[in-house]
């Protein structure tokens, strides 16, 4: 299973369509795709080659990530942190402001900061996505679905300590 997530708010047509095109060209039955596409508008792209929903519950979201072989997402921190915590190979495509995909380019900055982490693969367009997916799905390592570098379950200790001190001592 490939799990596509673009968050629950804005649609991300370019990524939804890139995934749909990949599915159309790879009419394979051994790998299914499910997508969470966000709050769609009347003219938003609606994929025809894979199953999707606008929003799934947070619990279902975690289950989808956990069960995925590969996660494909926008460069949103909810998607990235969740995918990393389950050590999933994660392909991220940032939303761009000049294409009207977000109000600014913070996702591009996020991609730049996270793309060097193992298990995170940055792509900028549809051909790069297809190429990366083909590669990941033919690499035996990813069959285990656990190539990401993973993250500890909680924030860095020094941040926790700073907040704890603040709560108790002001």
């Amino acid at each position: 299973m490939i799990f596509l997530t673009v968050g629950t708010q804005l649609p991300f047509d370019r990524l939804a369509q890139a995934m749909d095109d990949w599915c159309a060209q790879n009419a394979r039955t051994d790998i299914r795709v499910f997508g969470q596409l966000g709050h769609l508008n009347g003219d938003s792209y609606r994929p025809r080659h894979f199953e999707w929903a606008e929003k799934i519950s947070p619990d279902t979201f975690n289950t989808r990530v956990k069960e995925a072989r590969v996660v494909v997402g926008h460069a949103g921190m909810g998607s990235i942190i969740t995918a990393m915590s389950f050590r999933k190979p994660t392909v991220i495509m940032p939303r761009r402001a000049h294409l009207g995909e977000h109000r600014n380019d913070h996702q591009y900055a996020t991609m730049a900061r996270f793309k060097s982490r193992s298990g995170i693969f940055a792509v900028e367009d549809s051909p790069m996505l297809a190429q990366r997916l083909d590669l990941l799905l033919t690499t035996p390592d990813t069959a285990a679905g656990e190539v990401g570098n993973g993250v500890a379950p909680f924030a860095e200790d020094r941040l926790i300590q700073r907040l704890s001190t603040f709560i108790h001592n002001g």
Partner: protein
Amino acid sequence: MTQPPHVLAIASAGGHWVQLRRLSPAWAGCRVTYVSTDPQLRSSVLADPGDAAEVRFYAVKDANRWQKLRLMVSLLQIIWIMLRSRPDVVITTGAAPGFFALRLASWMGKRAAWIDSIANAETLSLSGQMAGGRCDLWLTQWENLADPDGPSYSGSVI
């Protein structure tokens, strides 16, 4: 025996919320009121209270800065929650609902901390910029954004 501090931990659903939950060891032993924008988060919060002494959850309307009416509803809900739960400390990772709670905290004479989202690696979020000077602890998760006159840096959620 004095009661443990009461923390109001608030964040919009999605990335902000995922980050807030990763901070939860900071309020181990405290009474915690969680506030977010997705009512479906309630079950996971109540099922996993962590080391908190007591946990409550409230959902408020989701809104961004362009949705004025929804913002107003969200603000009223947060005012009601703040008055009802009277927290000692407000902790937020953003966005709009967290900013509201932070402003209300300062009006109520309570302490508040803003932890700007890790998604803002090159500039602070707009609400994060507005939070500066209006909270008692102002943090960024990126060292390059720390500034003696701005937010401090004390590590990140991952």
